[in-house]
């Protein structure tokens, strides 16, 4: 049954719980949990550990619900790409209705618990972030515009904002800047990936930037976003929202990010290119975000402890 193809009628056994778990995109969720936790830890107030745990759980489950809805909607596209063909739906291990219902249940449950257990502003932003990813990005923008990643990047930018709002109960400039950091980070991160998997996206007709605007334009835009990202990451320091621990870290990390992006942005490739600078930039971009947000949380600890 595991090898059943979606093109022919299939007698499906019940999906395994692991397949439901896979629908939540656990790897993406790691970054969501981490950035949400950092937003929560960096906020200038205190929150009971149980409520903090609830907030992070809701952010993670909400992201999982949105991911499940994304996989439900894109099952046919996923079947056409090597990277995603083994997912539970395209491989025929799960029926679409179960995936859809699972996504709706996780989304509604996470918003409800966030509202009742933490606060309704955080719940409202969480609900909007799920809608943003599942509808605005997945259904509307991704198949229509090569700018899909730029605007869709907003979906991944919500966790630190929600984490912050879960603690403070209001929105100020700082959490908006945290949102802006991930928003600006997403295009160079994702386009670096799209450069070395572009044949897959072209095959299923997704208008990714390298497919529509060409490699050269994509490379230039990666560099532009990387350069713009640097002052955005330094803004929390400039407005006094963080100390020098975060500020210097952001500066050093950002300079490396710009240097790696410049290598990608200023080169031309031949037909058999191994795309090593693109792979290096993609790998570094993940590390970059983890360390940057880790330093944001550490900066708050340093301030509370009087180290800076």
């Amino acid at each position, binding site marked *: 049954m595991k090898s059943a193809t979606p093109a022919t009628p299939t007698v499906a056994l019940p999906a395994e719980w692991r397949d439901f778990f896979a629908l939540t995109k656990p790897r993406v969720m790691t970054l969501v949990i981490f950035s949400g936790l950092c937003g929560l830890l960096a906020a200038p107030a205190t929150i009971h550990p*149980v409520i903090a745990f609830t907030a992070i759980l809701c952010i993670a489950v909400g992201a999982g619900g949105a991911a499940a809805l994304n996989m439900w909607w894109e099952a046919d596209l996923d079947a056409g790409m090597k990277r995603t063909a083994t997912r539970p739906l395209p491989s025929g291990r799960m*029926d679409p209705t179960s995936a859809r219902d699972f996504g709706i249940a996780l989304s509604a449950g996470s918003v409800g618990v966030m509202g009742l257990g933490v606060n309704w502003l955080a719940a409202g932003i969480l609900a909007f972030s799920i809608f943003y990813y599942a509808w605005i990005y997945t259904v509307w923008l991704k198949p229509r515009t090569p700018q899909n990643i730029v605007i869709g990047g907003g979906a991944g930018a919500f966790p630190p904002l929600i984490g912050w709002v879960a603690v403070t109960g209001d929105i100020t400039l700082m959490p908006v800047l945290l949102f802006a950091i991930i928003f600006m980070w997403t295009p160079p991160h994702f386009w670096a990936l799209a450069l070395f998997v572009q044949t897959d996206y072209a095959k299923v007709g997704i208008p990714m930037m390298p497919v529509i605007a060409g490699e050269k334009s994509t490379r230039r835009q990666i560099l532009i976003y990387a350069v713009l990202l640097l002052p955005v990451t330094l803004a929390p320091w400039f407005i006094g929202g963080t100390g020098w621990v975060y500020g210097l870290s952001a500066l050093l990390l950002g300079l490396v990010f710009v240097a790696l992006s410049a290598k990608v942005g200023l080169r031309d490739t031949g037909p058999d290119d191994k795309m090593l600078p693109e792979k290096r930039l993609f790998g570094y971009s993940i590390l970059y975000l983890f360390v940057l947000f880790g330093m944001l949380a550490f900066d708050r600890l340093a301030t509370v402890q009087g180290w800076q």
Partner: protein
Amino acid sequence: MMNDPHKFQTPQPEHLSKEQSDLYRARQRGRNKVLGLVLGSLAVLFFAISIVKIAAQVNGAN
């Protein structure tokens, strides 16, 4: 872009071979165990949230 939900049919146990039947039951058992664990954890979480909220109310009133 969605899959056609009608191409999947719920299997009838009497139509399954012994191996399929064993696999069917093993998957159901696995799902039931995980669901039980999730529901149990949620009950503990809701209890903990309630205690924290009540304690905050009591402290606020005093």
